[in-house]
């Protein structure tokens, strides 16, 4: 079984859960003997690779502008990476995108003649000479960039057409998925890690919604990361229920976390409550702050750490100051690698107050680090975790009540930690990968 997989990001260059999910899933698929060609819109800098062992770019051909082909060994031995130089970035807005694009245009011209031809052909066929500006012109909007990525992906697919299934992760890759599936006649699986309704609430970007809808309807099978997401796909995108499969994410289990237990003993008596995620509307950072203020009415020796960046960062910093709790809230910026481990080791409680969270891998990572977890009921991960505290994101009073309880009653923290860590061990990527293989096999019955 060979899979042509389209993604946005991959560790160590990640800005959110999608990269983590792609890494965990592909690793486990690879262990099951599935061969994967993984196409990325961002270059991977091998010098920064940590847990992913990669060889140096083997075939870097200047004529294929911005594309790198990377062979890997070790735990990802069945995966080949292709990257396409592109400013596509998973968690971005069209405005931000515009800025990034201009920067890149400064540096180099973007599209090869060859790929522009393939793409234009496909574009004509797909959109009947419709409303889209040909990508080569570079109208400079995210929409055409998404289609330029699609064109490059089609070209790659045509070079190596020996795969069985196309698997596309989230909206930016759906047009590429549709294109590759159309050109090659292979079945398309779209994997919904998040929808426009999760990211933007009711103020959806129509263009993104249309791309998502088209992807879901063009796909032979849709994989949702939770029943919460499945419901959105059914009700908001009008996809038939029998086409949508729920496959929960997993978490990778790292050893050597025990160190943290010892460090707990030598720490000062100040408690730490952690928010780790993008500081953006979807993640509910303002609810975290409002709960923090309530907690501080009850408990003095506690600090609230907000790890991450995002479009609401400045507003949240100001908000903390206005509330008069600025000295109790620390902002660390975006953390990766060892810094993430460190912040988990310091934390007494991890809070995910998400307004809408299709799944939410971060709580699993927190549990993996022996940190008790408080999550919003509006998260997909709440469907799979029982040994955690749950609260409606808008219920500040109850959120604060539970935070105080964890800080005030040590047996609660202890029991949550013990049972939670045990429970999270059952949520493995290998299970998710096996379910994916089942989905592939149903679509490609001849293959075994």
């Amino acid at each position, binding site marked *: 079984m060979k899979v042509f997989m389209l993604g946005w990001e991959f560790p160590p260059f990640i800005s959110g859960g999608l990269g983590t999910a792609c890494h965990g899933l592909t690793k486990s698929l690879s262990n099951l003997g599935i061969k994967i060609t993984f196409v990325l819109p961002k270059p991977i800098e091998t010098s920064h690779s940590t847990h992913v062992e990669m060889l140096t770019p083997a075939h870097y051909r200047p004529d294929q502008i911005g594309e790198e082909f990377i062979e890997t060994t070790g735990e990802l031995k069945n995966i080949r990476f292709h990257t396409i130089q592109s400013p596509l970035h998973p968690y971005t807005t069209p405005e931000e995108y515009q800025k990034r694009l201009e920067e890149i245009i400064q540096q180099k011209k973007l599209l090869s003649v060859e790929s522009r031809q393939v793409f234009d052909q496909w574009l004509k066929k797909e959109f009947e000479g419709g409303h889209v500006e040909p990508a080569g012109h570079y109208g400079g909007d995210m929409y055409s960039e998404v289609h330029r990525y699609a064109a490059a992906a089609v070209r790659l697919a045509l070079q190596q057409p020996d795969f069985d299934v196309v698997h596309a992760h989230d909206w930016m890759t759906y047009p590429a998925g549709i294109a590759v599936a159309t050109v090659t006649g292979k079945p398309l699986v779209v994997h919904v890690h998040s929808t426009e309704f999760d990211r933007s609430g009711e103020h959806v970007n129509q263009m993104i919604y249309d791309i998502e809808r088209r992807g879901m309807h063009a796909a032979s099978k849709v994989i949702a990361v939770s029943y919460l997401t499945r419901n959105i796909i059914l009700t908001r995108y009008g996809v038939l229920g029998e086409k949508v499969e729920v496959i929960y994410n997993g978490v990778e289990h790292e050893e050597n976390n025990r160190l943290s237990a010892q460090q707990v003993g030598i720490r000062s008596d100040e408690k730490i409550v952690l928010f780790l995620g993008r500081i953006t509307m979807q993640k509910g950072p303002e609810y975290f702050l409002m709960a923090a203020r*309530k907690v501080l009415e009850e408990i003095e020796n506690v600090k609230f750490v907000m790890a991450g960046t995002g479009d609401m960062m400045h507003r949240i910093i100001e908000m903390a100051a206005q509330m008069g709790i600025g000295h109790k809230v620390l902002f660390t910026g975006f953390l990766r690698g060892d810094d993430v481990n460190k912040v988990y080791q310091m934390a007494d409680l991890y809070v995910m107050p998400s307004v809408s969270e299709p799944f939410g891998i971060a709580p699993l990572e927190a549990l993996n680090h022996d940190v008790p977890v408080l999550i919003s009921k509006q998260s997909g991960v709440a469907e799979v975790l029982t*040994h955690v505290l749950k609260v409606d994101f808008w219920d500040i009073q109850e959120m*604060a009540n539970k935070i105080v*309880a964890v800080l005030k*009653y040590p*047996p609660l923290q202890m*029991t*949550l930690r013990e*049972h939670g860590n045990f429970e999270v061990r059952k949520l493995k990527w290998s299970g998710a990968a096996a379910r994916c293989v089942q989905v592939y096999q149903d679509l490609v019955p001849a293959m075994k």
Partner: protein
Amino acid sequence: MPSVCFYFQVHQPFRLRHYTVFDSADTYFDEFKNASICRKVANKCYLPTNRLLLKMIQRYEGRFKCSFSVTGVVLEQFQKYCPEVMSTFDALAETGCVEFIGETYFHSLSFLYSRGEFTEQIDQHTDLIGRLWGQKPRVFRNTELIYNNQLAETIESMGRFDAIITEGADRILGHRNSNFLYRPPNCQRVRLLLKNYALSDDIAFRFSNRGWEEWPLDAPKFSRWIDQVNGCGHMVNLFMDYETFGEHQWEDTGIFDFMYHLPEHVLRHPDNNFKTPSEIIDSYPVMDTIDVPHVISWADTERDLSAWLGNAMQSNALHELYKIEKLVKQTQNAAIIEDWKKLQTSDHFYYMCTKYFSDGDVHKYFNPYDSPYDSYINFMNVLSNLRLRCREALTEQNVAEQAS
């Protein structure tokens, strides 16, 4: 000649209301929820089953008998929320075919934490049963049939009980069976009535289970199983939650019909009869001594304390609760003491059980909370407030004493 001995456990806790760390009111219990649950169960179980038993006692002219253990906290709720249940119990008491068993008024785990509190609650319960139905319990059962040798000694030393009811757990019986009377070591007066868990659970748990090979269970079949005890036992102790009838086993499972026709088939064999626990101990000799050094109970398959003391939250909550006993009693404040006692009801700790929590089984069914963690948080918040009230009451006392 087996005597069938029915004992039904009747209990409802005073459930707590949602109580956050920011609350400061001294009302801890959810009046509305408790009232509605009490009325719901009364309509499904207590009323129809009490009426059924009355009908049976009349029909079989006193040859059908049974016994009840009704906790003080559920009686308070009957009086408050559905007094018609009280009148049906009154009618049952008047037949003379119903025996009431003694227990801790608050259905508490006090035996494990405070012997003083334990005997105090038994006395309180005994007084209530005497006041209501003119009976003085001769037989004792501890909360959830929690039992060991020490409990027997404590009960023996109270000097008014002749027997204790507990679980016929395999590990205390060994090669023996539960169908005889036994005696605890170091006790002269007190005897042991052991639950026949196989036959009890056939009614209480398996009755409506379509996956069970004996389903459907009817009165002739069950009475044949009772007949089989002939020659290897004096009695069959069928001990179960009263909510089995109509609540755990719904009316449409046929549980009421089963019960109504059971005596007819049991009594068809001339050697069979129905006896109350007191009649059993007056009729049969003690066969052997049963040594129970470790605590047993009737809960789950483990038949131990793990449903109430299985995790750190449960032991912490219980420990903190009994730690303030002295403080509470020093206040001599009736409302504070009453609240403290109501917090002792074992259900509060059962809700905190994390055993099987992920599997969503019977523990969940009885749990008003979404999770054991929520129940612990709620309980601890209430307890914090109670502790505060104690301190305030004592400060006031001191001020008053100094002024006088």
